[in-house]
């Protein structure tokens, strides 16, 4: 599968946030998008997940040869797009296990596969919980209710490992995590790396990329990709900050 973004322009509340993004992600690749706050990183992530508050005014996004922008959120999800939220929602009254099984089965149904019943789901779920060093008791607790920031992020990666997406978009998954949680989340993500799966890791800090080594790094400033490079670009930003690129963007 591949993701092809061509000249993407996105508006939110009448303001243009993305000003012509071009990006190609091939199967198996890990891309990182870095940038200062307000550059449009999250907007890009949310548009890919089909959040309708974000209006596409120009450009196209093809996913596996299909028009991603024509899809509803659930269709994009069933096609294999997964967004690990920056601020995962708490939903009291729905248990983690029930939610995940419903989501998994919704996707299986879409693909014409057999749905998993509760009996088969449990061991599958347990195995993934172990990988993310999460407590089994979580199964019956309400979705993200009472979870710390770090636990919520781990839950996002847990969901990712259960739903097995083709394109995983991580929206600032590292923000608010201590080093231990970071390590666990990164392990979870790395365990999912495969030639058939791509990752788009949106991050403000370089630190996460020490654990999830990207193939490509892009710097987003003021809605434009100003620079693209290999992992060494991330280290350069770590060293120099964003100031020099921001100046370039301002001059445009």
């Amino acid at each position, binding site marked *: 599968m591949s993701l092809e973004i061509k000249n993407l322009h996105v508006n939110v509340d009448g303001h243009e946030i993305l000003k012509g993004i071009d990006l190609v992600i091939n199967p198996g690749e890990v891309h990182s998008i870095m940038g200062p706050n307000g550059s449009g990183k999250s907007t890009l992530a949310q548009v890919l997940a*089909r959040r309708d508050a974000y209006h596409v005014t120009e450009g196209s996004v093809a996913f596996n040869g299909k028009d991603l922008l024509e899809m509803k959120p*659930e269709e994009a999800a069933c096609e294999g797009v997964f967004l690990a939220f920056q601020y995962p929602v708490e*939903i009291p009254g729905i248990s983690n296990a029930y939610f995940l099984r419903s989501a998994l089965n919704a996707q299986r149904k879409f693909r014409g596969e057999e749905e998993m019943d509760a009996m088969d789901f449990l061991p599958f779920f347990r195995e993934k919980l172990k990988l993310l060093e999460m407590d089994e008791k979580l199964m019956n607790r309400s979705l993200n209710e009472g979870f710390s920031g770090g636990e919520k992020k781990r839950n996002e990666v847990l969901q990712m490992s259960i739903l097995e997406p083709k394109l995983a978009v991580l929206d600032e998954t590292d923000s608010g995590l201590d080093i231990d949680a970071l390590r666990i989340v990164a392990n979870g993500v790395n365990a999912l790396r495969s030639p058939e799966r791509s990752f788009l890791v949106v991050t403000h800090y370089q630190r996460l990329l020490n654990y999830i080594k990207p193939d490509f790094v892009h710097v987003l400033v003021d809605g434009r990709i100003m620079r693209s490079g290999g992992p060494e670009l991330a280290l350069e930003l770590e060293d120099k900050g964003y100031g020099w690129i921001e100046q370039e963007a301002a001059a445009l």
Partner: protein
Amino acid sequence: MVATSTQDLGIHLENFTDFQRQAAGRNLPWLRKIREDGFARFAEVGFPTTRDEDWRFTSVAPIARTQFRLPGKALVHLPPAELKSWQIEGSAARLVFVNGRYAPELSRADAVPKGVAVTSLREQIEGHSDQLSKQLARYAQVERDAFVALNTAFLEDGAYVHVKRGVVVEAPIHLLFVNSVDHLALMVHPRNLLVFDDQSQATVVEEYASLGAGVVLSNSVTELLAGDDAHVSHYLIEREHKEAFNVSTLRIQQGRTANVASHSFLLGGGLVRNNVHPVLGGEGGECLINGLFVGSGKQHLDNYMHVEHASPHCSSRQFYNGILDDTAHGVFHGRIVVHKDAQKTDAKQTNRNLLLSDGAQIDTKPQLEIYADDVKCTHGATIGQIDENALFYLRSRGMSEAEARQLLLLAFASECAERMRPGAARIYVEELLREHLLRFREASRRSGLGTGERNVEEVG
């Protein structure tokens, strides 16, 4: 007897006169007096209007102008198959009342342990029960409420439950009131007396349903007496058809360290009013009031809750959740009265409402009357719409919009379900809610999307 209210209560006077001539227990002086006092009070005040503070948001004009008749003497026989789905698996007993009258052929009380009486009120009246004359109509006051007065005037049948001291009844006792009305407008007045002696434990489920499509007013009063250290769970399930009027009053009297949980589910009916009035009369008592109301179309669902802390060291928790769609109208009036000597009272009230359409409406009014000075008393209300963020989150995992909305409705309703003790009654209610919400969603128009919940202080 002169009707002093300005309303035309002629039909009710006619009904009462006929009733007195042939009602069970008509020759018992104590019962005659109770009924007469009831009718006198009703005649004096008539049906409430929206000028009455306790009925500010609910007009019962449609009830006041209907010429209701009492059910005729002829018994209505329902084929048992009609009631097949209304069985609680593993219940200790199920008493069925058709149009307010006990139907022994549809009822059973075989799994009730020793020390427990589950019979009809009429049987108790006709058996000249001494116990009955001491306890019936001692708590639900006719002066307070016209519907209580009207019910008291016409009381004759309903359930009588008595659990003796120390007896624990694990399985629920199911009281099913079915109205079957076709052309005449009927009114029925089920009267229940549930007595739980010291240290007893039991669960009672009162369920109101209607068959057919005729206009019916079900006006029930239940007096629940919980002795010292008794543990009682009471459920009210109201799921009448959309033309029905349903008024219910639950008057609870609690002894020392008694623990009573009252769960109410208003799902059906066109115009519905549920009154819950617990009095914490003994030290250290606990009361949980857990209500859910789900309205669509033009339904009007009014929840009036009046908790009285009459003794020190008692705690009460009141949670009401409402889901309203189309042009349904919900009302929550939460009154907490803390008497002068009720020190160390701990009371908490929460009303959360989900509005699914622009036309849906909720009136929520807390009313705190605190006369003691060492008290903890909080209240809060929220009014919101389906959380956009939650909806997107679920859809981003592959769930369709319809499925996601359904799940969020279930989640909201399950806040209420979570407060029920695990057991047969809870299983019955949860299944019922699941089915109801499924049909509810299918029947309603698509609603607008919202932007999350806001907190509202006092409204009204």
